[in-house]
């Protein structure tokens, strides 16, 4: 399994991480090396082996539909990089 600069660019776009060209090139090299190792996992014939998503064999853990207090709004907004009186301000969506 190989990985090129375009793959890294695509992954960075999916992950929403801005990378400058140098960083992109460095990462492409590193990731290609890592993928050369871990990508070999694809060669195993495991068609008969079921996947494990979780080590625990738990099912049906559900919460009762009973309200609990929400956060005070000032506490919720306290960490916001840009808060209005009652919400979180973000730059324009889809300029």
């Amino acid at each position, binding site marked *: 399994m190989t990985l090129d600069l375009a793959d890294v660019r695509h992954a960075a776009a999916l992950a929403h991480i801005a990378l400058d060209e140098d960083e992109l090139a460095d990462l492409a090299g590193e990731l290609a090396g890592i993928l050369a190792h871990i990508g070999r996992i694809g060669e195993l014939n495991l068609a008969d082996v079921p996947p494990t998503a*979780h080590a625990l064999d738990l099912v*049906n853990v*559900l919460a009762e*539909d009973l309200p*609990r207090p929400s956060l005070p709004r000032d506490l919720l907004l306290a960490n916001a990089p840009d808060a209005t009186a009652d919400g979180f*301000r*973000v730059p*324009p*969506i889809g300029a």
Partner: protein
Amino acid sequence: MSVPAGWEAVIGLEIHVQLATRTKMFCRCENGTGSGGEPNTRVCPICSAQPGALPSPNRAAVERTIAVGLALGSEIAEHAIFHRKNYFYPDCPKAYQISQFDQPLCVGGQLAVPLADGDHVVRFERVHLEEDAAKTVHEGGEGGRVAGSSGAVVDFNRCGTPLMEMVTRPDLRSAEEASRFASFLRQTIVALGVSECDMENGSLRVDANVSVRRPGEDGFRAKAELKNMNSFSFLERGIARELRRQAEIYEGGGEVETQTLHYDPAADELTVLRSKELAHDYRYFPEPDLVPIEPAAELLERLRGELPELPGTRIRRFERELGLPFAQAADLNGTRELADYFEQVVASSGDAKASANWVLNEFSAHLNEQRLTVPESPVAPASLAGLIALIADGTVGSAGAKQVFAGLVAGEGGGDARAIVEARGLGQIADSGALAALVAQVVADHPEQAAEFRAGKGALIGFFVGQVMKASGGRAEPKLVQQLIRDALA
């Protein structure tokens, strides 16, 4: 029909329903459907995606979704799991939505829309459970539009509301069918008691996948996804507009593109929605913070037992057992409350036909005029049944009955129709002695007509009856009056 000539429409719907649970899907903040309260006051570490917060699924939401699946005859999964659907957007604080992917709670199923000449069956692909997004309000810009705005403010009250997604198969063949189906589906979900299904406030949202093909053609052509049409009539008009657009493109030698469109009802125009960046690659994977759901047989049995009679079944029963015409049976099932009310009236009155007429006419008009729901009406089913009985035994005539009903609406007589008849003096005059005097007077007052009648102009009987009714204040028993007139003019 809305389908352009020479084309067949292929339409499937994706319906999102906010479930009316007390708390959100994955946290125990109050569910803000409908009145959401002040912005950002129904928000906790979980639904604002603070670092380290974990989801815990709402049992009521899971059970309601399964109940809907049972009502549609879906196969309820033996093993259902949640997936993470990854995308970045300011209304999605974790940058993934917890949703379901290839192992949803309910698979398949169908809803039969009852029509006068049979059922129209629409099949479902699946019904699954997920969480709603936050609301973003654009600041500045013209009319709150995205373009030119200086930014947006995010309110997380709605974020995490339980959302049931229902996906139909592409079984719908016209815009009218689609809208009729959506409306009946709404009626069914409301009857199940799982959601308010209010399109205006967004607790019911309908998207449509629309394509056209030539009749007889196999397979499907490229489809457009029409988003968030917030009324059934907009849904119908939007689909009709899109069907025309696609037919015109093909007829002009072009190709339809797969895209997401927004319908502007004011302009009857479709605009392309900016695609959420890279939205085509959601990187679904099993949600590691949650464990699988394996509904037990006992749970399914309980939920099945709790299902109310659904509108479709009930409409057919009203036709079959009560002998009502389809239109009345359907109208009575407009809401579960109205149908319940009607059945209570029938149970007391024993007269389905009269009960249907009264419930659909006077009673419904009264609800509309006073903007009341069925349970809010002061007219108890037994009271209306009492009135129907008074009509049947001739105590009141139709004019008098309307006045009695007005009395019931006004809360007179303690809800006893007979008491109102007595108090208002509305009883029908069926005493031949009293009526004979009135008849004699009317005949005396109209000698010319009396002569004409006697000379053979039988149609004048109506004139005389009318005069007597008028003279009696509408209370005279019409059949008896007719007899007395014939006797008097014999």
